[in-house]
């Protein structure tokens, strides 16, 4: 096989990995793949070119605006709730239809639904960001160690990764959360998701490290007496930034969707927490009479996921030099 083919295969593998995560999480995102081959010499022009590309990409602007909107919503929900308190409920309003006064209507307990959906953003985003942070820490740590040391260490860590990889994400998280060892809070859900979602990050970092480790400039640095740690921090990790950034952005969306799925399946957040997954779960039995109870949290969830997917897509288009004509 030629070099190009070999690289193509590695890239295909990553692409398949990312795709795998998404199906497992019950979302399907991250088309195409982050590029592996970002060498040091190209870093600077890479980032300035990327910004030039990004500026012209409507996906980037739509994604950024949506993501920013939901972040502000998570930080200051009262700004969006039109004065309603999500916990101020009156059964008289039960399942009230959307109106000019109450845009999203009322849920079964007669709580203002707009306020509930708005306040749901916070848990979704916290879990998404927290989980992705754990994923990154695990992925970078395990991936860098495996790639850098190679040999038996690599074999062992790679097999362990394979084992986790073969387990469906939602299923694994489901079992862990059902066991109750972690509890059922925001942190528990994030950790459960990360525990079964770090493998793609590991493979990404590992392949980056291996690619860069064998490059000429690392050989040169080594020849000049640079230590392992210095090589890792100065030369290898910066190269992994671009693909990891793309991966991270999309994965936030994937994990937010997975959280809603777990909560819907009854092992994620629990009342009285406010969460889109809980709202969808509660609404599903009333789908016939009050479809808005499923519609609005679904819409919020979808838009949030879409924001990160679009951002990730735009970043990849910008950071993948192969796609640039």
């Amino acid at each position, binding site marked *: 096989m030629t070099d190009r083919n070999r690289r193509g295969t590695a890239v295909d593998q990553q692409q398949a990995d990312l795709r795998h995560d998404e199906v497992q999480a019950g979302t399907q995102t991250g088309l195409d793949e982050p590029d592996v081959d970002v060498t040091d010499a190209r870093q600077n022009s890479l980032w300035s070119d990327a910004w030039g590309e990004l500026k012209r990409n409507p996906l980037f602007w739509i994604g950024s605006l949506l993501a920013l909107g939901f972040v502000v919503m998570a930080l200051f929900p009262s700004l969006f709730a039109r004065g309603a308190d999500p916990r101020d409920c009156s059964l008289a309003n039960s399942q009230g239809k959307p109106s000019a006064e109450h845009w999203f209507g009322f849920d079964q307990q007669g709580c203002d639904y707009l306020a509930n959906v708005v306040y749901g953003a916070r848990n979704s985003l916290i879990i998404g960001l927290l989980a992705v942070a754990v994923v990154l820490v695990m992925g970078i740590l395990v991936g860098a160690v495996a790639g850098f040391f190679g040999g038996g260490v690599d074999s062992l860590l790679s097999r362990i990764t394979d084992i986790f990889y073969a387990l469906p994400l*939602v299923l694994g998280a*489901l079992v862990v959360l059902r066991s109750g060892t972690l509890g059922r809070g925001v942190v528990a859900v994030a950790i459960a998701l990360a525990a079964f979602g770090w493998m793609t990050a590991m493979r990404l970092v590992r392949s980056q490290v291996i690619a860069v480790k064998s490059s000429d400039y690392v050989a040169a640095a080594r020849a000049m007496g640079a230590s392992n740690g210095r090589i890792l921090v100065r030369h290898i990790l910066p190269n992994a930034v671009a693909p990891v950034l793309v991966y991270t952005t999309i994965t936030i969306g994937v994990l937010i969707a997975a959280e809603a799925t777990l909560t819907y399946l009854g092992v994620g957040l629990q009342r009285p927490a406010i969460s889109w997954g809980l709202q969808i779960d509660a609404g599903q039995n009333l789908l016939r009479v009050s479809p808005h109870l499923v519609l609005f949290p679904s819409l919020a969830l979808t838009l949030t996921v879409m924001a990160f997917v679009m951002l990730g897509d735009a970043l990849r288009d910008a950071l993948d030099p192969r796609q640039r004509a």
Partner: protein
Amino acid sequence: MGRYVARRLLLTIPVLIGASFLIFALVYALPGDPIRALGGDRPLSPAVQAELREEFNLNDPFVIQYVKYLGDLVQGDFGTDFRGREVLDTIEQRLPVTVRLTVVAIAIEAVIGIIAGVLAGIRRNGFLDNLVLVSSTIIVSIPILVLAFVAQFVFGLQFGWFPIAGIGDGWYSYLLPGMVLAAGSLAYVARLTRTSVAENLRGDYVRTARAKGLPKRTVIVRHTLRNSLIPVVTFIGADIGTLMGGAIVTESVFNLPGLGRAVYDAIRAQEGAVVVGIVTLFVFFFIFFNLVVDVLYAVLDPRIRYD
């Protein structure tokens, strides 16, 4: 090739064992006492409880429990649930539902995804190309949970085209859940096909095919699609394994009595043997189809040899 397959098969064994051990460990680390919960309102007598504990090796150290389980598994014995029902029976009963759902989903994903992708790739930047790009971005952003409800509400309840739950209508009942399950992969297949076709169309050998004076149809079908579909076909192959283990939500929302639904119920009921058995089966399918894909790759692309 034969040797490669044999080596790969050997390599899958530790992964299979590792995955089943992992799930076993998670399941049996569950706090709470399933035996005591079994009787519900009328608790079982201590004697019966002790008997059950003995039968399910619950008194053994954890690792011993696993080794015993594995020993049985190798002989094709998946064990029994707490009600004495063979796990294998459950699997045999539920598997056909999951298989049918997967078959429908894969068929939808392959047919629509490839057609859309080819049309988009041949006329890049055309109307269809942009349609495929925009719609696939939207589809991949919709969590399957949401997609399932939207489909159920719109096509099941509003239009009444499809049954919204159960498998009472034979293959027809699988159509809507199949579409939901397939949606994400479909969008991905369309994009993958599009990229691959567009890339191959620019290939030197396509130029050669045109220079040979081959009819346009031959240039596209024989010299572009044949090459372009290699990554697509292999993706779809691997997706079979992924979808089989990824149908929990779809089967739950559409109330299909498949393996996904079964494992979900078992997790809730803390039926360890069922959970471990089915998840191990999922892992097996996943690994198996990935292996098939590797072999398929070599069959489709003569450049790849594993010896």
